[in-house]
């Protein structure tokens, strides 16, 4: 205990040498806002929060922590949904909110160099005068920061055509756990050596601290159109998704909502969705005039051929915004019809959408819990929202089991436990379902190549092998996940 106290005192002493007092938070009330990220069910107070402003400060802080073996959890805007920025009780939060400058806009190369604390939407806003934008648009884009986007490999509604963060970032500067600054990637279309840029993207703060990002910008599409199609049954809607792709069209966005989600969203946002439909698809197309007209007619025909009962096209910006408003409000809308909901994030091959939705509905009956399905259909990225009431005895536990069943179903159907929210702390146990011990061992080898003492974001993203072994045993015995007392939403 004494040695621990000594090391904490040495830490604070050393940090005071690096940072001004107001940028080193140690009082409980100052630490409180950092106790969780967007997944507030998991909470923990760190030893301290440091808010550096320069890369040199980050390097010094990391060197101090490394020498004292103090864990470091990097944090951007704290909007993540998987507990990735949950503090470690024996460690510090390294907040990058003061790294909020746009460093350079290169109009000719269509790139922007930014600090990691710059908000996702601020990039597109700064690029707008040049007719450019940054494509990945996670739903939290007004608040989330680019450093966090890189750490989570954030997605959004336009991934099908424009890719994820990994496809739209050209270079990242990281500070390693030894305090070295290393540049991964470059301003060119490829870089010699291993693709460590891809490795760091989506690594959830486990391999290095992201301190600078060069993003790729795209020319704004000249025109967009949005179609909405309604279906009498969910299988038809699922098949329509594959039919659009098979017709050779790659929509900018292709979203789906089921009956419960439609009704909740319509009551909330008045988007004009048909209340009698079992499912709707929203399809956004973009391009120049000729491309667009042609694609609109192909998609409309395909939708009708796939048994859509109605197909509506929004041409004006206002009509498009209205159709999107319902989709964008779906989560809060579902929040209004149920005291609690639990948001899942699995991905499955598109061809299995219909059968997975059918199975989710069967599970819904089995668990006697309603589920609203809102998702990025074009990518097969599901966000089933399981509705429950945490105040009713046993419901939370039921919702969690239901959620775990859905994720296991996704893996069984050739998919994954997380499409865009990340593993973080939340899905660490499901990693044992998706990966076997040999695969997890390989992940640990990667981790140790960057961070031999496991100081960067410990306990996240990749489960310890013994955790999976214990979990596997528990699965066999009674099918229950550990920590049923922890609430999730």
């Amino acid at each position, binding site marked *: 205990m004494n040695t621990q106290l000594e090391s904490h005192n040495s830490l604070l002493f050393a940090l005071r040498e690096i940072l001004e007092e107001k940028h080193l938070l140690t009082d409980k009330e100052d630490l409180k806002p950092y106790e969780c990220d967007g997944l507030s069910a998991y909470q923990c107070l760190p030893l301290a929060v440091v808010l550096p402003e320069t890369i040199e400060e980050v390097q010094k802080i990391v060197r101090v922590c490394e020498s004292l073996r103090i864990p470091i959890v990097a944090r951007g805007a704290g909007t993540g949904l998987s507990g990735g920025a949950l503090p470690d009780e024996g460690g510090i939060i390294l907040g990058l909110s003061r790294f909020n400058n746009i460093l350079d806009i290169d109009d000719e190369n269509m790139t922007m160099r930014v600090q990691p604390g710059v908000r996702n939407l601020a990039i597109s806003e700064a690029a707008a005068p040049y007719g450019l934008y940054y494509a990945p648009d996670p739903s939290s884009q007004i608040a989330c920061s680019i450093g966090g986007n890189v750490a989570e490999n954030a997605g959004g509604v336009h991934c099908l055509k424009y890719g994820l963060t990994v496809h739209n970032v050209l270079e990242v500067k990281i500070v390693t756990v030894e305090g070295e600054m290393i540049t991964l990637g470059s301003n060119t279309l490829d870089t010699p*050596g291993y693709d460590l840029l891809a490795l760091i993207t989506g690594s959830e703060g486990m391999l290095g601290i992201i301190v600078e990002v060069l993003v790729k910008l795209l020319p704004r599409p000249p025109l967009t159109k949005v179609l909405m199609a309604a279906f009498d049954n969910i299988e038809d809607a699922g098949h329509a998704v594959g039919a659009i792709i098979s017709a050779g069209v790659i929509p900018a966005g292709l979203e789906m909502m089921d009956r419960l989600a439609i009704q909740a969203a319509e009551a909330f946002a008045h988007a004009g969705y048909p209340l009698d439909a079992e499912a709707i698809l929203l399809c956004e197309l973009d391009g120049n005039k000729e491309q667009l007209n042609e694609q609109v007619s192909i998609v409309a025909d395909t939708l009708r051929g796939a048994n859509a009962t109605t197909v509506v096209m929004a041409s004006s910006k206002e009509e498009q915004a209205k159709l999107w408003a319902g989709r964008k409000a779906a989560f809060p809308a579902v929040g209004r019809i149920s005291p609690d909901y639990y948001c899942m994030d699995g991905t499955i091959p598109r061809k299995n959408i219909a059968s997975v939705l059918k199975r989710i509905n069967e599970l819904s009956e089995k668990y006697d819990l309603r589920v609203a399905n809102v998702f990025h259909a074009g990518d097969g990225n599901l966000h089933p929202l399981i509705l429950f009431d945490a105040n009713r005895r046993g419901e939370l536990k039921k919702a969690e089991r239901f959620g775990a069943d859905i994720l296991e179903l996704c893996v069984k159907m050739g998919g994954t436990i997380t499409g865009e929210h990340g593993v973080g702390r939340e899905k660490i146990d499901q990693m044992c379902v998706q990966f076997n011990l040999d695969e997890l061992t390989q992940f640990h080898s990667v981790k140790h190549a960057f961070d031999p003492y496991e100081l960067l974001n410990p306990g996240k993203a990749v489960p310890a092998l013994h955790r999976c072994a214990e979990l596997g045993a528990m699965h066999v015995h009674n099918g229950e996940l550990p920590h049923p007392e922890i609430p999730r939403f």
Partner: protein
Amino acid sequence: MPSAIPSRDSSLELQQQVQSSLDLHSPLRIEGGNTKAFYGRPAVQTSNVLDLQKHTGVLDYDPSELAITIRAGTRLKDLEVLLASHQQMLAFEPPSFGINSTIGGVVAAGISGPRRAFSGSIRDAILGVEMINGEGKIVHFGGQVMKNVAGYDMSRLMVRSMGTLGAILSVSLRLLPKPEKEITYVLERTQKEAFIGSQKWRRDHIPMSATTWYRGKLYVRLSGTEITLNAVESHFLNVEKAEVLADDVAFWLAIKNHQHIFFQRISKPLWRLSLPANTPVIARFEGDLLVEWGGAQRWISNNAPANIIRSVAKRFGGYATLFHGQKQLPEVPPFPILAPELFALHKSLKRKLDPQNIFNPGRLYLGL
């Protein structure tokens, strides 16, 4: 999905060979079609060859998924025929330097072709990988879905690793619909005018899918539907004063596979410069030069000392690879020297993933 591609699963046999190589500390030379032996550092001299050619076949292909999973020994040529029969293609248009080029080799070398600057590289297209790792285990990462953030991205790490991190058994790749039509325009342009044109057309959403500039001529390939290509036809013919290239398919095949006259008659080393697209004309390399990717990839055949070529590329924010010419310059490392801290990270990763150093040692860098 029936196809003419023979299905042969040799994974257990290959795994056994890796395992015995581990037991004997005996380095392995991983080999597919052996069409890129000229590329990179020389392979380790050994008779212990891990022959992937016997591991072939399509594991999963449903065209509506825009994805395919294939065994690494499958020939690129056979794969392309299969995809074309479903009006699909590999968006990164990989070159083939011989008929036996395999998809495993395509991934490990990570060389993308003419379409790369417009529809992404092989690392953008890879979705999943199955490999034999440095513990002799068969492991899977990723899958057939594009949105997948569970665990580290091992699939992309395998691209361009030259087989130094494990033996690829199968890969899943994202596909794109084959364009309904393609047309190539030829324009009389200086190098500088070519850069400006490519940049402008890109901003104007002209559906470009490849550019090549060579000796005062700019070749621009457009891909799309009949309607979209007709819409820009008069602009190219009347405003840009372009001509339509008659044998366009053969032309792009020759560019892609390095059979174009520029690549054929060189007696000097062939260098590949990867540069920011807006890099100006480099006077020093105005001699025998072929420019692709709107300026981002420039090929030069030049006798200038390696350090000069490399420092010029570096000055413009890019780098130079000695692509072909190790015979003339055996002492020159084909890939540029990495920053010391970055190289230390490479070594650390190699040591962790291939602790016995058996996978293609030295093929990418000395010491990896």
